[in-house]
């Protein structure tokens, strides 16, 4: 067993967002139910296959006429009543009761939620907005949801366009994000860590590139993060960054992106006020580093064809300056 786990880990399975490596109360409950159903399913498969093999290969008395007569029908009928009705019914009742218990257990968090996050799904990224925290300033970010570890957070799910589905396998099951319908769910991670989330409902061209991350911070770290996110963008301190801000201003960027603290307040694309604090860009498509940022600005359409982000034609120095500026937006 341990060796098998090591083998799986070596194949990279340890990195996957597995529903059977739960990191929060909802996912833990579901994983327990999942194991029950998986074990029952496996056992039923093995038993039926065993009966099948026995039925095919059992010893049979010698025989003459070529056709077995129907014989006493009570034998087969007993098989059907016991094996086809009674046994499955007992198993199903047990499984169904376990289902109802789990369903009740995950309906609400163990303790009341401490924060509310509004997640708006766009084709193909996630807008994240913190509300109801007594803050006088908005916190808006994208594709990265910070939560305090060990505390439950309410997530209100809104769609800006088509149906998406919000899923963090290690923390909870899916909730669809449906235009015209306000869905909500709750998230809780037991320990600090980074948990991968995905869009699970086919939503068009770039459904494959609509990931996000839930980052569970220790409560003090979370408070600090929130304070930093509340702040407006820092003004450029060096020449390169200042030039980058100018590029941002005069090029296509400002039409879609907001940088709070400047006069650029586009609402179409992700808020970039603290873009450099995020681990990835383009909804989990690329790691957030200088090279990828430059590549994304210049060439988004070949990295994520169909994305709302156009290729922005900038010459080398302008692009360098722009990326230098973006990297200051911690």
């Amino acid at each position, binding site marked *: 067993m341990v060796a098998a786990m090591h083998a799986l880990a070596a194949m990279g399975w340890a990195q996957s967002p597995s529903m059977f490596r739960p990191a929060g109360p909802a996912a833990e409950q579901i994983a327990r139910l999942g194991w029950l159903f998986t074990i029952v399913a496996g056992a039923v498969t093995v038993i039926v296959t065993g009966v099948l093999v026995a039925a095919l290969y059992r010893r049979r008395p010698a025989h003459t006429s070529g056709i077995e007569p129907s014989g006493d029908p009570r034998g087969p009928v007993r098989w059907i009543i016991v094996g086809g009705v009674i046994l499955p019914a007992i198993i199903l009742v047990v499984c169904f009761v376990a289902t109802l218990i789990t369903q009740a257990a995950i309906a609400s968090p163990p303790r009341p939620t401490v924060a509310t996050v509004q997640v708006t799904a766009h084709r193909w990224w996630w807008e994240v907005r913190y509300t109801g925290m007594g803050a006088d300033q908005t916190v808006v970010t994208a594709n990265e949801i910070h939560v305090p570890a060990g505390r439950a957070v309410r997530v209100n799910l809104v769609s800006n366009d088509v149906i998406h589905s919000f899923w963090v396998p290690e923390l909870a*099951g899916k909730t*669809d994000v449906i235009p015209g319908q306000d869905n909500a769910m709750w998230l809780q991670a037991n320990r600090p860590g980074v948990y991968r989330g995905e869009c699970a409902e086919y939503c068009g061209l770039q459904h494959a590139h609509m990931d996000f991350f839930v980052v569970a911070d220790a409560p003090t770290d979370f408070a600090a993060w929130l304070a930093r996110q509340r702040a407006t963008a820092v003004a450029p301190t060096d020449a390169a960054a200042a030039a980058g801000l100018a590029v941002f201003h005069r090029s296509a960027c400002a039409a879609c992106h907001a940088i709070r603290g400047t006069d650029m307040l586009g609402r179409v694309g992700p808020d970039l006020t603290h873009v450099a604090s995020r681990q990835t860009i383009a909804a989990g498509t690329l790691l957030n580093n200088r090279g990828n940022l430059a590549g994304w600005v210049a060439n988004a359409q070949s990295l994520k064809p169909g994305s709302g982000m156009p290729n922005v034609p900038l010459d080398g120095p302008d692009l360098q300056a722009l990326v230098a500026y973006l990297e200051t937006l911690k």
Partner: protein
Amino acid sequence: MATVVAASDAPRAQLTEIWETPRGLLGTLTSVDHKTIGKRYLVTAIAFFIIGGLEAAVMRAQLVHSNMHLVSPEAYNQLFTMHGVTMIFLFASPVLSGFSNYLWPLMIGARDMAFPRVNALSYWTFLLAGIFLYSSFLVGQAPDGGWFAYVPMTARAYSPGLNIDFYTLGLIYLGMSTTIGAVNFIATFFTVRAPGMSLNRVPIILWGTLTVSFLIVFFMPSLTVASIFLYLDRTIGTHFFDPANGGHPLLWQHLFWIFGHPWVYIVVLPAMGLASDMIPTFCRRPLAGYTFVALATIATGVVGSGVWIHHMFATGLPPMAMSFFSGASMTVTIPSGVSIVAWLATMWYGRPVFKVPFLFMIGFIILFVIGGVNGVMTAPVPFDLQLTDTYFIVAHIHYVLLGINVFPVFGALYYWLPKMTGRMLSERLGRWVFWLMFIGMNLAFFPMHITGMLGMPRRIYTYPSGMGWDAANLISTVGAYVFAVGVLLFLVDLVRSLRVGPLAGNNPWDAPTLEWSTTSPPPPYNFAVLPTVRSRYPLWEDRLHDGATSIVDQGPVLDDGRETIGTSALDADPMAVIHMPADSAWPLLLALALTVVFYALLAVSWTWTAIGFLLVFICLAGWLSPSRIARAGGGT
């Protein structure tokens, strides 16, 4: 007239003249022979199976490794949509219609289906609807919204091309074909069974196809209505699904799945029926628990009509409502379990003979069990919230559709093709075909359970590295290609069989049912004399010693024209001699006229739509013109 004649004295030449379709193009296009139509259904459905398989082959190549760029996202989305549409609508159901069309009259001792011309119409509309859907590739705008086409992604605002118009209109058209076929099966079941073939004596495939025919009649309208709503939303700006104007996207999901879930049973129940009729032959004994299996078939259809919400557990419906559907979904296991245990009991109390069709039956039962239990895993709401829309579901549906549709179908091809062609397929190649398909299927789809549990969503055209999904995806791709080699080898075997296969004779498997009492292939009139049935297994009566005495070697000839015996619905007492229609070009012409209508609707040309409807009216008038009915001596 209906005088009793010995089969050896029947006027075969005269019967042939009455029933044979003339050779040549005109005969080909006008034939209403159920055997011709059945074979056409099979060939067309298998052609679509190969096309859908090629689409899958491209997808598996794209997914063999992370970050592959073999096809564009547009192409991938069209491929997986058309793979689903093709396999579900153009293969899985029509291939079973093919078997039912071919086999029903032979199994129930009739000369044709109740409505032979309607039967021809059903085929031509299926073929033309399939061509209509595939013509979307010619303009590079194949449907790309998934086979389920959720709004609003498929609304005009997010899908401006023709892609979804091909989808909605194609499904409306195909739904007509399916409904026409279903009505014909229902009528045939209740009117033209051989004298004495009471309800408790029909082969199980009839129960399967009858049940799904009712499901089609009840639930196909739901898909048709949904498709019409979406077409109207897209073309004339209605707001059925538009939340900004009082519509709701979930309306589409309800309408789609009210149809969509019963459809799963529509493509498996007749296949389970085929299995129930093949297994006794190879176990050398009657089916154990016939009544239970027949009732389980109907029960599956009834319970299966009330579980559609389990496709929508993540949409935020009230928990109490979902619990009921969760429980109902688990309940479907019981009738399925009854059927499986009946097959196991048949094997246990029988004396199995391991021929190729039986190998497919064994594989089918194992895959059915896996596809059943992994389905039960998705029934509990909480666990489904994790599993839904992942590769786990891809594994589940493929165990169900390959396991309970494709495996019985390939077993049935090995079993009944000798009846259709008169020549046997190869036992040796057949074993290779079975093992390649069985191993390939499990290699391809079992790992998907794991990738799904490891968090891989469905319908993604590529995936990042380092997620732990690469190894399993590589295995899946290898398995898919092994499966494809199995299918290819079957085609080789088929061609070889048609050329040099050993002659089958009337009854190569020593099987018990009526279709094996006539020649292989059967004559145009099926039976020289119409049989009288006294048991479920007319050809085994002498050895079962159960006192039944069906009569297959003498009976009425009915040689005054195309005629068959009409019998009562329950006990099949002879009631009337039914006149059957002659060959006719009207079914094809009507289907062509309908095709004009659908292309006109695609182009949103009301003028051409009107012209198309005029053509439809002309064809209907021609079809129903009294002079023709009088000349043909029959009705529809």
